[in-house]
């Protein structure tokens, strides 16, 4: 697949890294010579110095043969024009753009991105994606990560298996015997920094991070079986009132009427903008590292502290300070992947990597075949994929035990006519069933093949 990426910043680099690893022909354009040099040195991609929306630069990057353009520069307008140029001059079939300004995304202006105007197939707003991830974690506080699939009917939960987890050392096959009516499957385990797709005889060990695919309506029960039974956070303190903070607060006001949210924002201008846009949220002006201000925000009685400023160090320190002052749990936004390794030792319960969130979203549209959703986990070591089985798929028509799925692939859930089906040895996948499947990075191509649209289909 020939892919052009406009923007070699953190997001552009991350996408290029993943796509290049998978053997795609990747060209990256950026108007920073330094970034272009850096990406060329480190990855197997072609770099082009120039403005991502200029036709001559796109032509040099091979836009005429490109299957897809991914415009993720810092500037919405550059991303939009790059997609427009790619469409109008080079007829690139698939166009993705990162658009941060919410004005462009207002429902009453949605016609802007219609085929006859500015034909962008997928618009990605990192702030909204990150906001949604945080909202899901607020709703299910025991989970490290929550990813919805199949129109929210299925959820993938990442659960820390600590000393409170009662199913440690229990073989996975026994879990279904112990909880026969529980619709949940452990599809992946992160153990000592390595990702594995477990077999039914494997056990969960202390310190594992288990990835469990479950019926959304049983998510709370699943968490409680793993010893993570906690109520929905209702007293929330948010450090940082940028675009993510504003989106988050709006959604909390809309979806959680009982929640009490306090926001601490350093910039007075941003704080005023937030106050203008919100009804029930209290906006405090000052530093999230100011102990007195945190107490004014009621941190000692808060259920959750969400640190989402632009500064990773502030997020780490604010989260640690909040915990020290009595806050129930914390969640920090960490852009720098270097910090991810020692969050636990610092006392940070959970973190969000915006780059990985955005990359997951982009990859969803890069995958071929009948793939509806993709979520990249453990820094790209595996993907949880939602796909639709076609008549021609090798998965269809045989009981699962006869499929002989290779190691590194595990089926988590099947949706037959919209109903959750717990996969077992005798389960048979039917055409048009939706399947939620985990594939280690090296098995992703095989999964793509399983769901590809072959000629026989027509």
């Amino acid at each position, binding site marked *: 697949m020939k892919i052009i990426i406009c923007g070699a910043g953190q997001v552009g680099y991350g996408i290029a890294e993943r796509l290049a690893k998978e053997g795609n022909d990747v060209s990256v354009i950026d108007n920073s010579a330094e970034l272009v040099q850096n990406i060329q040195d480190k990855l197997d991609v072609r770099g082009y110095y120039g403005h991502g929306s200029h036709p001559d630069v796109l032509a040099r990057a091979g836009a005429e043969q490109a299957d897809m353009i991914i415009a993720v520069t810092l500037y919405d307008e550059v991303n939009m024009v790059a997609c427009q140029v790619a469409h109008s001059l080079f007829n690139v079939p698939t166009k993705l753009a990162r658009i941060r300004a919410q004005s462009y995304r207002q429902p009453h202006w949605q016609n802007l991105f219609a085929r006859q105007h500015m034909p962008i197939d997928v618009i990605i707003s990192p702030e909204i994606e990150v906001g949604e991830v945080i909202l899901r974690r607020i709703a299910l506080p025991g989970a490290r990560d929550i990813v919805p699939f199949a129109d929210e009917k299925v959820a993938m939960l990442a659960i820390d298996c600590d000393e409170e987890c009662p199913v440690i050392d229990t073989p996975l096959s026994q879990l279904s015997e112990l909880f026969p009516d529980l619709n949940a499957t452990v599809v992946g385990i992160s153990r000592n920094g390595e990702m594995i797709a477990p077999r039914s005889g494997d056990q969960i060990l202390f310190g594992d991070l288990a990835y469990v695919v479950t019926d959304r309506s049983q998510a709370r029960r699943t968490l409680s079986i793993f010893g993570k039974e906690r109520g929905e956070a209702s007293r929330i303190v948010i450090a940082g009132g940028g675009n993510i903070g504003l989106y988050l607060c709006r959604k909390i006001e809309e979806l959680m009427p009982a929640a009490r949210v*306090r926001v601490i*924002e350093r910039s*007075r201008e941003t*704080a*005023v903008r*937030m*106050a*203008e846009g*919100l009804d029930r949220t*209290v*906006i*405090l*002006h*000052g530093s999230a590292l100011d102990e007195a*201000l945190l107490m*004014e*925000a009621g941190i000692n009685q808060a259920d959750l502290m969400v640190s989402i400023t632009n500064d990773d160090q502030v997020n780490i320190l604010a989260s640690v300070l909040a915990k020290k002052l009595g806050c129930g749990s914390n969640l920090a936004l960490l852009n720098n992947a270097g910090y991810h390794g020692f969050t636990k030792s610092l006392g940070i319960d959970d973190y969000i990597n915006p780059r990985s969130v955005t990359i997951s979203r982009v990859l969803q549209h890069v995958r071929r075949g009948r793939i509806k959703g993709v979520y990249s986990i453990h820094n790209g070591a595996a993907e949880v994929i939602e796909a639709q089985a076609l008549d021609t798929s090798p998965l269809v028509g045989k009981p699962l035990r006869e499929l002989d799925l290779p190691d590194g692939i595990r089926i988590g859930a099947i949706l037959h006519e919209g109903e959750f089906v717990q996969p077992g040895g005798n389960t048979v996948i039917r055409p048009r069933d939706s399947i939620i499947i985990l594939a280690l990075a090296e098995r992703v191509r095989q999964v793509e093949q399983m769901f590809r649209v072959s000629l026989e289909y027509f």
Partner: protein
Amino acid sequence: MFALFNYIGLVGTFISAVLLIPALTAFGFRETENGFSLLIYAALGGFLSVNLLVATQGRGSMLKRGTALMLAVFGWVLFPVALAFPIAGTFSISYSDALFEAVSALTTTAADGLGSLETRPASAIVLRASLQWIGGLLTILTFLVLLGPTGVGGLPKTRRSIGEGAGRVATVISRMTSSLTRYYVGATLVCFALLLLTGVSPFDSLILSSTAISSGGYLPPDGQLFELGTPATLLVMAFFFMLAATSVYWHRMVGRWQIDNLRRHRESYYLIAIMAAISVFLLIIFLTTPGMRQAAGTFSLISEAIFNAASLVSTSGLQSNAGIFTLLSPAFVFAVLLIGGGTYSSAGGLKFYRVGAMLFHARQDLAKLVYPHAVAPRHFGTETYNLQIMKAIWVMSISSIVAIAVGSGLLAMLGLDFQASITASVAAFTNAGPAYSPDWAPRGTEGWLAYHEMSSGMKFALAAIMLVGHLEVVAFLVVINPFRWLGR
């Protein structure tokens, strides 16, 4: 100064034209003498006004903030003084009583200083109702083109700003007057037609439609409102009171279906909600008052409750039945009247916008006690409240209370019962004349005089309070400020 005369000429021409309605009524009712005298007044007023209008049309000068306020005050003093002459002539009353009637009618206060109307000429009653109708229109126009742009009393600013050339101002005033008059006349005709359909006689419909559209309070001479038509009559009146109490800008938003603006607008919705809440409250009182349920059907009581609530909020002060408001606590009635209707409407009072701003501000200051570092929003709906506007609103509110207090003191000194003085002062200030009535008097109390029993001194005092209240007291304070004149 040319703008001032131009505006006076324009309004004078319009008033002179409206005088033709009572003149024609006079001929219709064979009150020939009144008919000719009204025609002469109309011709004289028309001649002077048209001359003034033509002489000042297109003359260049700036309409400054001070001039705009002076224009508002001067206009509202000049027209009652001039219109007291035809009133004195048609009603055959003294000039001082006629002046009270003129101020009362033009400010839509509708404090009836004449007593029994049965013996009065029909043309005189129509004249008074016509002045009340013009008063409603002039009130909105004064706020739209003069007081609004100056932001007096923290009024939400209109798009047009003071400081344009007189020619341009005259054009803007003419255009606004023209479109507003068309709307106002159209709404009056609809109200008139609907009242006819509910079984009210044409003459009574004429008087009642002028009352409803201007949030005035005059009744036809035939008796109490509930006797004039059906419960549907009260509902029609209530709807037009609601219309009169809400901002014409909101009406325009609805007419043009400006969804975005409608969504952000607040004042009119709060006003309607309060109206609904008072309706429910009144209905509960009606249903629990011995004898009321038996005397009238439930639909009749519902329509009465809605009508009286709308009348209160729109500061009409009219009651469906004498003494209805006395079922409520006087403090509640006068608090509602003092809050008044919406901005850019013909209703009186402090206005919902200002009360809302004060509550909004108070809430933010209270929140500051709990969260000293809290950042407060500056907007509420479509309005922006900054410190300057809040100061203006607080000054306006305090000045209003002081004006009511001074008015009460003055009336008490002139011999009115003290409680009656406060009641009359609030009713006059909020332009809700009928809300003051001896029905409020505690048993055995003397000195609660009806308007027609009051002395000339009391009537002058009340007329002054009506004008001060009608013109946002601050406008008066600015114009009579000695530093303004000494500093020239």
